[in-house]
């Protein structure tokens, strides 16, 4: 346990150093505002993919409706900041609570379904959430919610992302997380071993949804206007792609997946007509050569890095 804490601390220091470096580059004007915006997007996508990974990768429940929860967090957040002038932190927490509560309510009945049936049910639920939002005139309906203050800064995204990573990493390594992994490996065996499968499936789903809500809040306050069109099932696919590309069941993988997908999309912005074709080919090729994702189940932890350095020292 002691070791784990030290491990966390080293990671935290590393994180803060990375933040200082990037923030320094931003302040010095070395990163153009386009790439700054994409840094925000990378951070938000990391939160989305890590939280989806908890559901899909660690618990093995095939969810295709993650963008719906993001939408809930986004809309709850913007109503609070724009119409009630509350600070961003309140908006994020309320968004998390809203999305988490909805995740709980939805998860309870639907998580009895398995495999592809669960996939289509969650896809449907994500679409239902979006369509309901689209029909609420108070939040602008299909045309979108306008005049959102630009509150998301790099610091916000980075530290919320760091918090998400620590939370999910520790959850996965806790006894709850072990129960989730047991469900992924074999649900019937897990049940036979006394794991309350419904409880842990719903728990993972709720936590994942709540973090998607937080990501939604950050996303909404970066772009002045949000519309239901940003939260279609295509967006859910995009987050799923990040998770699978990085490796189901690997937090490092989710970070890498979110980074690669966002980066490819931004870097190809100069060739709009070929962007999607190249993206599609990259996706097919990556799956061809790394069907288990970039990282598979592997994690890069500083413990491993130290091991490697030590080993190299000995050789």
């Amino acid at each position: 346990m002691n070791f784990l804490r030290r491990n966390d601390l080293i990671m935290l220091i590393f994180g803060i150093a990375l933040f200082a470096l990037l923030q320094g580059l931003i302040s010095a004007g070395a990163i153009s505002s386009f790439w700054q915006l994409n840094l925000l997007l990378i951070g938000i996508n990391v939160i989305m993919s890590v939280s989806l990974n908890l559901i899909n990768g660690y618990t093995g429940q095939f969810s295709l409706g993650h963008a719906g929860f993001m939408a809930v967090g986004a809309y709850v957040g913007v109503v609070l900041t724009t119409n009630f002038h509350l600070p961003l932190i309140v908006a994020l927490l309320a968004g998390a609570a809203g999305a988490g509560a909805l995740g709980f309510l939805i998860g309870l009945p639907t998580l009895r379904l398995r495999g592809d049936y669960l996939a289509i049910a969650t896809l449907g639920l994500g679409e239902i959430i979006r369509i309901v939002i689209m029909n609420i005139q108070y939040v602008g309906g299909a045309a979108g919610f306008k005049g959102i203050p630009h509150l998301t800064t790099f610091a916000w995204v980075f530290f919320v992302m760091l918090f998400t990573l620590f939370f999910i990493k520790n959850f996965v390594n806790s006894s709850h997380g072990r129960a989730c992994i047991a469900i992924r490996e074999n649900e019937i065996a897990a049940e036979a071993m006394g794991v309350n499968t419904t409880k842990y499936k719903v728990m993972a789903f709720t936590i994942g949804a709540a973090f998607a809500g937080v990501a939604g809040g950050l996303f909404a306050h970066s772009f002045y206007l949000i519309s239901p069109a940003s939260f279609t099932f295509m967006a859910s696919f995009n987050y799923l792609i990040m998770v699978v590309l990085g490796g189901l069941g690997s937090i490092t993988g989710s970070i890498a997946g979110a980074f690669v997908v966002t980066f490819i999309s931004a870097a190809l912005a100069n060739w709009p007509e070929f962007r999607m074709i190249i993206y599609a080919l990259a996706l097919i090729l990556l799956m061809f050569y790394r069907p288990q994702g970039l990282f598979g189940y592997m994690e890069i932890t500083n413990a491993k890095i130290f091991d490697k350095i030590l080993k190299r020292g000995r050789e």
Partner: protein
Amino acid sequence: MNFKKKAWKLASLAIGTMLMGSMLAGCGDQAASSDEIVIGSNFELTGNQANYGNACNEGLKLAIKEANDAGGINGKKIKLVEADTKSEAAESVNSATKLISDDKVKVIVGPAVTANVIAESQVATDNKVPVIAPAATNPDVTVENGTVKPFIFRSCFIDPQQGTVMATFAAKDLNAKTAVMYIDSSSDYSKSLGKVFKETFEAAGGKVVMEEAFLAKDQDFKAALTKLKTANADVMFVPAYYEEVGKIVKQARELGITATILGTDGWDDPKVIDIAGADALNNTYFSTHYFEQDEEAKPFIEAYKKEYNKNPNVFAALGYDAGKMLIDALKRAGADDPEALRKAIEGIKDLQVGTAKVTVDKNHNPIKGAVILETRNGERMMKTKIAPEQ
């Protein structure tokens, strides 16, 4: 396995190199030579709205090509950098930011769809980059809470004007007493036109008896049309884009709806006739910006046909108009001082663009006339010409 690993490494190396290259290329673009004026086009090139964005972009490219062929702006060539909004509001902020920060454009034309322009306008204002939106007809595009956004302009008329024109036409010229509306609830354009039409039509003594909604990209409209048929109204108002309009008119006639169908400038594409069929389009009217047989519009239509080998639609025409307005302003103010360029766009007066003569008003809207066209046996005819409001 060994081969696989090698191939994998090669592939990742190739992709990595390409991406890095793209980043560097992006940096290289920054140093635009001094004999060029860099302007950005930010349109819906992929995604659901790609056909509208691409049409606008084609019109704009034609205007710029003509200007460059004629010697450019005071000796400087115009360089156009294209960006893609992916048909999404958040992404259009992203692509506009790229144009401004990485490509260092002096002015942006686009996007086509209202919501995307509104999303983009804050970034453009913050960075003092003027925007001309070709086809965003919603009043909120250039005005926010009663104040005019200093850097945002458009090259089309606004919804209230068009909605009023059609409602008055229905009440006065067609003597309609009752109307039904079929609105695209996914677009601001359609919704605000519906609102204006209803207000004006009811003020003129008519009554809107039923309203139904559809969503862009729908294919089958028969269920809602069956319902609208029961209202037995004199006219049906369908403010929408041409893809859906063609199908709506076709299916409405198949279901036996004989009422006059009214529309707006979103109808203005030769494809509507192909999709709906000539017979179905009898007894329909729509308002738009110009009539293809107008003397004024001929040079543009000829040039467009020569360049792209097809007839322009309204989006292409408005993209061309936006290009013409921009070129005029650049000629007078140059591109170095955004404040001067902004003032030059504000000062556009009696400028001959592709479809009409325009003057920019205090709300940054061009003062333009409108026409109402009738389609009869597959041919469009001028029904009424409405002089610009001064």
